[in-house]
């Protein structure tokens, strides 16, 4: 198990390297420098700026400098917010983004599994069809349509929740729900499908034949095998929530990393955009890795030996 974990970790290193390299060289390919302005700067000042940001060095040296910085958790200076480093900006946005992400993930997993199991138990009933139709809609209607609709209904018509900003727990409800909805829908569909498959398998029939009550059968025999596909979906779910958070933070005006990312993209703040891309990509890789390891521990078919 440990050697498998180490091997997988070693496999993630080239991926990380590719991410950093692709984003770094893409940004360097960009036409025009980061300090291009309508009015040309005097050459001496421009040279000083170039030196301050190490842009006068050969490109490979800049790359190794960036890579070395990353390993120490330093994303370099922001090109547009001159008094901040990218690391400081990311730290500033982290609390809000983490709250949203974890909140959405927790709700998505709990609600998705509960809904999926209910639908599987009441298979082909009206409730099942209703829930699955709702799930299909939840997957397809994009978050940037759902978010304004939710804030219209709950914020403006019903006046139950704030429509934006980041003050107090109430302001986190709508963003978290928006982020969680498509994931709830996907997880519910996955759970339903795999629970139906498990419910039909011989060992469940045996358990029932032994006279175990339904609840026991569900908890002891169905739950674990039925949840394995959900576990492997958690990787893509993280990616989906990170992507969704960009839009949701923008709509609800939440001071998180996603909003910085959008502003930086519109301002062409290369280093900040690059920093967020690298951070999110690494997060997704790490999360996928953790999910894979967990999967290996839980799935008896894969075996414990490396």
């Amino acid at each position, binding site marked *: 198990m440990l050697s498998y974990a180490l091997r997988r970790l070693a496999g993630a290193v080239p991926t990380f390297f590719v991410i950093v390299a692709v984003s770094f060289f*893409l940004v360097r390919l960009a036409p025009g420098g980061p300090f291009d302005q309508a009015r040309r700067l005097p050459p001496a000042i421009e040279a000083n700026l170039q030196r301050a940001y190490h842009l006068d060095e050969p490109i490979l040296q800049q790359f190794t400098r960036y890579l070395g910085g990353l390993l120490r958790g330093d994303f370099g200076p922001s090109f547009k917010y001159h008094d901040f480093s990218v690391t400081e900006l990311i730290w500033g946005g982290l609390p809000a983004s983490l709250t949203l992400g974890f909140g959405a993930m927790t709700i998505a997993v709990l609600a998705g599994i509960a809904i999926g199991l209910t639908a599987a138990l009441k298979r082909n009933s009206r409730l099942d069809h209703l829930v699955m139709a709702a799930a299909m809609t939840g997957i397809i209607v994009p978050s*940037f349509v759902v978010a304004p609709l939710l804030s219209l209904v709950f914020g403006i018509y019903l006046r139950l929740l704030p429509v934006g900003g980041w003050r107090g727990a109430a302001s986190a409800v709508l963003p978290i729900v928006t982020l969680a909805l498509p994931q709830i829908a996907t997880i519910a569909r996955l759970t339903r499908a795999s629970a139906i498959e498990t419910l039909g398998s011989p060992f469940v029939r045996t358990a029932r034949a032994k006279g175990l009550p339904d609840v026991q059968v569900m908890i002891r025999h169905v739950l674990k095998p039925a949840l394995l596909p959900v576990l492997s979906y958690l990787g893509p779910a993280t990616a989906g929530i990170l992507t969704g958070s960009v839009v949701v933070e923008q709509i609800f005006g939440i001071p998180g990393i996603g909003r910085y990312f959008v502003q930086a993209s519109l301002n062409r703040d290369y280093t900040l955009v690059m920093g967020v891309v690298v951070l999110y990509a690494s997060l997704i890789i790490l999360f996928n890795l953790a999910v894979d390891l967990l999967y290996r521990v839980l799935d008896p078919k894969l075996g414990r030996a490396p």
Partner: protein
Amino acid sequence: MSALALPEAAPRGRSLWRDAGRRFAGNRAAMASVGVLAVIALSALAVPWLSPYSRDAIFWDLMAAPPDLAAWHPFGTDTNGRDLFVRTLHGARISLMVGTVATLVSLVIGVTYGAVAGYLGGKVDALMMRLVDILYALPFLFFVILLMVVFGRSILLIFIALGAVEWLDMARIVRGQALSLKRREFVEAARVLGVPSLVIVRRHIVPNLLGPVVVYATLTVPRVILFESFLSFLGLGVQEPMASWGVLISEGARSIDTAPWLLLFPGACLAATLLALNFIGDGIRDALDPRDR
């Protein structure tokens, strides 16, 4: 020689595609979706005949006016006084175009890559698929945004960038098919006859793996449309005076408390299109592979 090569005229059997067509026609959800999509696509093409207004004509006395059938503003006007019906249909043009073109780009890259990897096999295959694995772990949307930031926002770049990130699944599916196809007798025969590898891939492998490719491509279209709307919503997609559904939705979201129809109409069009495309994709899959049900 030619007498030998000519097969005996076989009785006309039921072809895979005709069978699939009949099953598809029996799928009510899929047929209804084809209808919805046809209405949207045709009205997008026929905007000039459906409405007398141009997409940038401004009605100074009608800013964010609600839908009004008498003056033929069926969707109302936006905050700049432009007719929303016309703008939504122009948005449909862009969204459908992005969906089709980017899917074609992904199709070309994915099918070529997958077919070559699967057919050549061995070390080349292992290397090529390892690259796909690495790329798979990347959050592509962020890279597309990075591309937009670096090279400026142009619609051509959107086509190519979205196509270039959507080919991975396609390459995997095609490779799997190619791996099993290349052991079939007709491929072996071609090889024995001395047909070069590239020609075998083009003439024998690719035509035979079209089924799953078509299914997957139909499911790629809505994803690409959604991506484009997402980018446009953030202000990183198509630019004024062009308007995709993402742009319209983002404008609508800003004035949702005073003029909710600005969000509702483009949002409903986007949702309907995505839903229809998904149903059609599922329908084609079920039609081509009835076992899958």
